[in-house]
């Protein structure tokens, strides 16, 4: 009983001494630990959602890649008129033009970047829908020494 009274007196004396705070370093440590704990909890909450988002992103990329039109290899008719060293370059991204089938072999090739209405490509044998024939694109034309086009690709 006396011990209780002594403790009570001591607490009253402490209270009368004014407000007291924990030392600064203790407070900082406490805050740090609280933030760390809180972050772990947030991450744990978001992990399933992030996993789903990443998986969906990968699936979308794979679908886009598979759906993307691939450049066609140069058919034999055009390949015969494109010198071997140029074939390596040309078949990477160029589409052979039907009108190039019969042109002589390439001696020197040049690439011309042109800006043209889509309808112009019809004149070179490229099938183009009428609905957007007036639209414009930039394209690279692979020309031979005679200035006639062998192949075309869309500019990047």
């Amino acid at each position: 009983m006396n011990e209780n009274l002594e403790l009570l007196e001591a607490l009253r004396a402490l209270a009368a001494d004014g407000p007291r705070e924990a030392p600064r370093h203790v407070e900082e440590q406490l805050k740090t630990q609280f933030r760390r704990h809180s972050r772990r909890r947030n991450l744990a909450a978001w992990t399933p959602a992030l996993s789903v988002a990443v998986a969906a992103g990968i699936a979308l990329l794979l679908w886009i890649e598979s759906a993307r039109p691939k450049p066609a290899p140069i058919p034999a008719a055009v390949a015969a008129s494109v010198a071997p060293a140029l074939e390596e370059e040309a078949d990477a991204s160029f589409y052979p033009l039907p009108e190039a089938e019969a042109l002589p072999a390439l001696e020197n090739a040049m690439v011309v970047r042109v800006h043209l209405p889509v309808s112009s490509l019809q004149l070179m044998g490229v099938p183009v829908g009428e609905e957007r024939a007036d639209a414009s694109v930039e394209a690279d034309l692979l020309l031979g020494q005679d200035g006639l086009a062998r192949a075309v690709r869309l500019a990047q």
Partner: protein
Amino acid sequence: MVRRSGLISLGTALLAASLFGQGPGRHGGAGPGDFEVVRAEFGGHNKVVEGAPYSAQAVTQFTQTLSTGDHIQRTTNASMARDSQGRTRTERSFGSIGALSAEHGGAPTVMIFDPVASKSYVLDARSHTARSMTIPAARTRPANENARTPRGQANVKTEDLGTQTMQGLSVQGKRVTRAIPAGKEGNEKEIDIVTETWYSPELQAVVMSKTSDPRFGDSVYQLNAITRVEPDPALFTVPADYTVKEARPMMRGGPPPGQ
């Protein structure tokens, strides 16, 4: 079939590009011409011919006959030169490309191909600048590579036309006739596409070629005014008052930086 699927893919890509990319065009449309030249350069690995210098004027005439009976005719000219080291210079106006005509007539473009220095240059006379590109290691051209015949093709007939003299050179001729059987492309009758080529082994170049394709038109390419003396070395160098800018070739992925 491969060609058709490739072209359908290109058509799809064109449609997508026109829908999402460029609309009426950043240049405001190609105007009265069929196209507008943005820039030009040599196309990747050009073959190197050493020890056969020449200068010549090249003329290409393209004629297309319309269903109305009317004709579209285009002519392009180029000045060509090659020195003993295999360096070449081509000065060409892109006023037309086959059946297509350029919007502004096509300013002349000078292209220098220098396998000795592994460089190619495109000169712009208006701005006095030269776009310089590093070219891959060149290879020497095997003799008479042009005499190859189309490989693995059915319905292709090759005829030897013998030897003639053209422009003071002995040239070897061949005629390749490629037949598209009736019905293959929706055609009622067989279509014959004929190409005649006259090649000079001495010059290692085609001196004349003619192509007749009923679907698209006829073209005649001819080297005229051929001189076989060593050209002026200055033709194969960038003029001193030009500013040289390094650029990335279009042939190897995308446009040059800053363009």
